[in-house]
């Protein structure tokens, strides 16, 4: 469905992506794990068109991707960015409606969002800036789904959330995937991310250093040492 070939990107002199290549199959969940600064967010920004790559290509359903973000969204790819980026001054409902900008009517999407996240319905007239962190994350995911994407990219959906809420979010991501949406997810919480994914990649310093099925990577010695056994995810997580 999505094929990344030799993708490179940089910020001035800082090389953020070096020769990234991988392929994402329709209907699957792929998780990308990696330390801070590995280039995960940059990768997603390149795919959605917020950042211009220096080289390489992004091929979506056999066609090279256009340059502008709004066209990428119209083609069915959506990014739920790191740090949520909700519209704080708009109400919850307005945030969702803006998410449905490319869709004729937001009604169906609103119904679905409120079914998935009943909290959002209670708060729909409230300014989004007043929501709690977890609620904002729910809003960001729900807003991403409003465009009826074929592929949804989630950049650290569990960032700053309590373990119980992380479980909820992971279940929602599985549910979204079961409804036929392909998922590309970046996560610090490697245990959770590998738990629900089909495929996974490990990124280090702008490169993909490991790739395979999620089950495989979860068994991999070096992955366990770096991302599962250490002080991230695993030990602090009771879920």
């Amino acid at each position: 469905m999505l094929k990344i070939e030799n993708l490179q990107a940089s910020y001035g002199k800082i090389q953020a992506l070096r020769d990234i290549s991988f392929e994402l199959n329709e209907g699957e969940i792929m998780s990308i794990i990696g330390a801070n600064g590995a280039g995960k967010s940059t990768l997603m920004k390149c795919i959605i068109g917020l950042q211009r790559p220096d080289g390489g290509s992004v091929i979506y359903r056999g066609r090279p991707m256009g340059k502008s973000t709004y066209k990428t969204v119209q083609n069915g790819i959506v990014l739920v960015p790191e740090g949520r980026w909700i519209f704080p001054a708009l109400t919850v409902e307005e945030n969702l409606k803006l998410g449905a900008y490319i869709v004729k009517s937001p009604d169906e999407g609103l119904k679905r969002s409120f079914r998935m996240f009943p909290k959002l319905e209670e708060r729909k007239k409230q300014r989004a800036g007043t929501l709690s962190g977890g609620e904002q994350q729910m809003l960001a995911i729900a807003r991403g789904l409003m465009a009826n994407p074929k592929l949804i990219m989630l950049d650290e959906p569990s960032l700053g959330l309590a373990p119980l809420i992380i479980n909820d979010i992971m279940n929602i991501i599985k549910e979204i995937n079961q409804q036929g949406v392909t998922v590309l997810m970046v996560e610090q919480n490697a245990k959770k991310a590998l738990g629900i994914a089909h495929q996974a990649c490990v990124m280090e310093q702008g490169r993909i250093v490991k790739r395979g099925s999620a089950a495989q990577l979860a068994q991999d010695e070096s992955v366990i040492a770096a991302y599962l056994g250490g002080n991230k995810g695993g030990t602090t997580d009771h879920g």
Partner: protein
Amino acid sequence: MFIQQLITGLSIGSVYALMAVGYSLIYSLLNFTNFAHSVCVMVGAYVSYFFLLLVADNILAAALCSLVVAGVLSAIIEKVAYQPLLDKNVNRIYLLIAGLGIQIVGENLVIVLLDGRFHAYPTTFSSIPIKLFGISIGLIDLIILGVSSLALVLVELLIRKTKTGLAIRGAASDLNTTALMGVPVRRLITIVFLLAGLLAGLAGSFTGLKYTAYPSIGSLTTKAFISAVFGGLGSIPGAVIGAFFLGVSETMIAAYVSSSLRDMFSFVLLVVVLVIRPTGLMGKATEEKA
């Protein structure tokens, strides 16, 4: 007497509001002050003058004509002058300089191509007073106040009730996030310039009707700019409130204190606002920007 002054003040305020909303709209999206705005006001004033002179003695048709021409001009300025700079992601100061350049060139172009004189609108209309509850009120003040208010209400409806308006409000918070929603942000920016230009053209037509058309007529946008700052740059209701406040205060000061103090009042107000409350009455605080 007081009622008369009040109507005059409100009518001046409504024209300031037309211009101030344009400043605020553009500022809310791009965080810079569009100095080329005054060119649209000036062109609006001249278009109405020539319409009345050459086509027909109908001030509303003339105003409509000004509105369209200035709107298109504003969109062209954005496409030709600002968009290449925005593409290069330059510092905002370059946008300000480009805008100032357009303002200077525009004004001088009129002097070169036409002349530097004052052109009173060739219409019989402006002198007609009407009697309302025993007070005589200038009909032109009432028309200006009425049409401007209508235009402001329409803009407010556009912003509050339409999909494009929702996108504009989103873009005021963050352009990239708005692009992530599938909004063609480039086109949205052009639409906002068009909208600001439409209002500026209308304002120009009314200003010309009241004060005649002349090359530096666009400098009245300074008052609109002060209104927008007073109300809080980037806030549309703030701009409208600020504009009416300024229009009424100026008129009252000119009538009851001294007309030479009128302009000083605006600038003192600007300084006071910048010192005491730089975000203005309803300005978007930085925390609003996610």
